[in-house]
């Protein structure tokens, strides 16, 4: 009897060590391995002219579809420019101070837990933050990308993590965290303006004819941002 019990226990442990991880969005749609999910920042008016920027989704949800509890380990990797706070998996909201953070928790059979990764955008500094997420539940591993987008509502903006460019109707306002060159081209491809940028500043477009212009930011020989503006 003892040997049968031992054998059955061993087989049961082997069976139950197989856990199945499912990642879903708010509507319950499955986010496939290698997929991307995007969240947009929203401006909330709390009254008295005080506004806050929120990009704090609870989702994606990570669900244990297996028949028994398993350990869930989630790794989030960001770039230096991405300011993120992580509230999920464990019980603490913690601003990410390192480029990679790992959190673990036990996830029961059928239980789901929210990722709760948030973008800490600064008002007026339009940007896109990107995080790579890898989740492992037992022997099942899935990875996906999260993009947090804070878009300029007044212009056509290109999403970029390292610089932010905003057209305020008269100039391209830039925020560059490292030296770069800001070039502006006509639709015919002619370079009409070029300026070295670093930090915060403006490139005046008031002296250009009306029309659509393309801009790019080049840093270290690599284009790091691009977009279009309509000069009226």
């Amino acid at each position, binding site marked *: 009897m003892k040997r*049968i*019990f031992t054998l059955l226990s061993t087989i049961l442990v082997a069976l139950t060590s197989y856990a199945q991880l499912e990642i879903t969005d708010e509507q319950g749609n499955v986010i496939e391995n290698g997929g991307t999910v995007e969240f947009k920042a929203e401006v909330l008016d709390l009254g008295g002219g*005080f506004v806050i920027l929120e990009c704090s989704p609870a989702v994606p949800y990570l669900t244990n579809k297996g028949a028994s509890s398993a350990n869930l380990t989630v790794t989030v990797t960001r770039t230096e420019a991405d300011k993120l706070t992580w*509230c999920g998996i464990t019980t603490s*909201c*913690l601003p990410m101070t390192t480029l990679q953070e790992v959190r673990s928790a036990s996830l029961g059979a059928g239980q789901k837990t929210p990722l709760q990764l948030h973008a800490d955008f600064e008002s007026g500094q339009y940007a896109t933050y990107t995080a790579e997420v890898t989740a492992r539940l037992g022997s099942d591993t899935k990875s996906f990308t999260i993009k947090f987008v804070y878009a300029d509502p007044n212009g056509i903006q290109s999403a970029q993590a390292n610089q932010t460019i905003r057209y305020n109707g008269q100039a391209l306002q830039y925020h560059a965290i490292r030296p770069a060159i800001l070039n502006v081209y006509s639709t015919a491809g002619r370079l009409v303006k070029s300026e070295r940028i670093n930090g915060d500043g403006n490139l005046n477009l008031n002296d250009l004819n009306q029309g659509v212009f393309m801009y790019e930011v080049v840093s270290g020989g690599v284009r790091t941002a691009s977009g279009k503006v309509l000069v009226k």
Partner: protein
Amino acid sequence: MNTIYKWFLLILVLLGFCACDEVDEADRFTGPVEFVPKKNVLIEDFTGQRCLNCPVAADAVHAMQATYGADHVIAVAIHGGPRSLPVSSGAGLALPEGETYHTFWGVSSWPKGLVDRGGGWSTPSEALLEYTSWSAAAVKRLQKEPAVDLTLNNTYDAETGQLTMQVDIKANQAITDGYLQVWLTESGITAYQDMPDGSHNREYVHDHVLRAIVNGQWGEAVALNATDDTHTLSYTYALGDHPTWKADKMAVVAFVYSKTGGVLQVIDSPVVQ
């Protein structure tokens, strides 16, 4: 695969029943041990309106108060840190003094809390606890004999908006490094709060929010050199200077603490009697 798994599980369960011991009815465990609190406990809940998990910690505090009594578990929500909104914004609950507390205690993730300031501390951050540990820590502290006895009498003049407080302290043992701290709190504040499900609740009800510090950031020293030594301290506060505060939702919280003993005793009393 599922069918095979279910059969194995059934067989294991049946085998498990063969291994049960018979326990006499008189020896069976019937539940948590009950006790009568000997002292009150202070929960300092470091929180923020943009902290998704913080409402869960607030619920944990309410549960503790329901179990052990709100007069024995005295909670103060101290807003601060990057997940909070400053009171200067008009929509926030974080005082500059609250930020000072967050910094001193080394709060770097939220929610975090102190239960009787850890019963004493050698470094501030060692006293911090995750909210999941608050109940167990409180149970231990509730059963300790209080080193001091406190009584608190408030008088509020609604016409002048003047609040007068008198705190009487009696030592049950010698305390040479004690401080008396007096705070004002307000409950029932409807304000913005990020929720665990990611929603933005503009009508969240905040309770036990630290509104003011009456006697200095860290209180004032009270030397109680021998058993039965007493001190009486009186304070006034102009509640009328804060028209948005609701006096009938406010309370005075007074506690004596020391670095070696943590919070030795705490008491609260409504502003409007």
